[in-house]
């Protein structure tokens, strides 16, 4: 329950932070900065993908655990900046789909974080319990095999999280491309 509340809190905090910062920018007459925060937010989110590259062994530097923590934080921070950039405007479809999909991806990410933590804790608990009961290693492994279904839930989750990311990436690419094409250089 605590973990669920924590995830929801992080999500709500992200949206509230964006609203407050956007309001402050309007208050001091610097709302134009929001336009350029989109660039900063995108760069931050892209930099969070070092974790994905490391997982796929495309890069070999960096500890996966540390990169995962960076992925979570940078994804959150980049999303806040992009929320400020988008503001509360209902002008165009493509950027809006990109923004909605970004929020869904973040929510999905928080769910994944929750599942991962649950799975790890659960497996550890079970291992300790079985050891205390006096089961042999073979029996422990057999028991854990079924419990690894929880880990399988994680894999299922990845099958949703990655395509959602692709939706975000596609619409973001279109948004950025059209900005570059039609910007007042």
């Amino acid at each position, binding site marked *: 329950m605590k973990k669920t509340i924590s995830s929801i809190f992080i999500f709500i905090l992200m949206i509230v932070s964006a609203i407050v910062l956007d309001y402050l920018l309007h208050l001091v007459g610097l709302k134009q900065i929001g336009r350029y925060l989109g660039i900063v937010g995108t760069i931050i989110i892209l930099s969070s993908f070092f974790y994905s590259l490391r997982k796929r062994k495309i890069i070999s530097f960096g500890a996966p655990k540390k990169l995962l923590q960076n992925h979570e934080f940078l994804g959150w921070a980049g999303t806040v900046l992009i929320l400020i950039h988008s503001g509360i405007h209902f*002008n165009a479809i*493509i950027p809006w789909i990109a923004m909605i999909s970004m929020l869904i991806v973040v929510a999905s990410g928080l769910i994944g974080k929750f599942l991962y933590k649950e799975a790890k804790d659960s497996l550890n608990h079970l291992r300790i319990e079985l050891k205390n009961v006096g089961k042999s290693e073979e029996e422990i492994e057999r028991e854990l095999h079924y419990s690894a279904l929880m880990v399988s839930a994680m894999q299922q989750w990845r099958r949703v999280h990655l395509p959602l990311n692709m939706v975000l990436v596609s619409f973001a690419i*279109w948004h950025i491309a*059209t900005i570059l094409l*039609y910007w007042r*250089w």
Partner: protein
Amino acid sequence: MRSTHITLFMSLLIAGIIFWISPYYAINPGTLSGGHEKLKSECSACHSPGSGIPSEKCLTCHREGEIGKGNSADVGIKNSNQKNFLLHKTLVSEDCKTCHTEHNGFGRENATLNFTHTMLNPDINRNCQACHLQEKPNTDMHSYSDKCGLCHIQEDWQKAKFSHSILTDAQLICRTCHNKDAPQSDFHKTLVNEQSCAECHQTSAWTPATFNHEKHFVFDSNHQSKCSTCHSMTDGYTKYTCFGCHEHQPEKIARKHKEENIQNFENCAKCHRSGDEDSTFNENSNSKRKKNSEKKEKHHESGEREKEHHEDD
């Protein structure tokens, strides 16, 4: 992994289709102003993909040299705006984006950025009346000078600060502008010439009045009189007489002064700045009094010697 690729491809395709159906609703960053509403589906009417928004695109509809004469659809005097016309003829920068923007809302005012006078040709910038002649108030105050900048600033026209320094000596007649401000007290009613105002008032600040009686005469215990004792209500306060008091009789005063060999004693306060008869401000008067007092002393001395001589006898 396969589903990931399929999702990527499908998303890109869907986004492309949305853009193809309606570029305006797909990517427009804000509502177009009313006059450009009809260009909703023609992004390339203003945009050159990859090279921004060149002014040539604007001039396709807004013909150069005729901006301000009418709208782009019907060039004529229907919506003629002389100020706009002159403004566009005198701009320093010919890039329309310097002043104009779009996708900022329906209202026409949203399409114009904050105007600053630095956008104008410097010669025009100095000549306020080139654009603002009709706004120039038709008052006496505004007839004194054509140099609006002497009192006004471009950033805030209303914050005018009038300075009397713009007036020539011939124009510095207080009552021309301030006649209705003149107090109606007995004191002020007697002041009829312009020099009278300047005696006590400054152009930098009308109040407090700077009149200092001690400049002319210092009051003392003998001279705590009313104004009317020395000044005539009909002649004004620049004129005075000391003969209003019983102490000062014309014959007595004349005799005393002639004894001192002082011939010009019409203007008492010129020498007597206070009731103390031994204090005078006039050097000539002092020197005369000194000579006379020396004479008196010599006279006294010679008188005493004679007396002694006679006593000796």
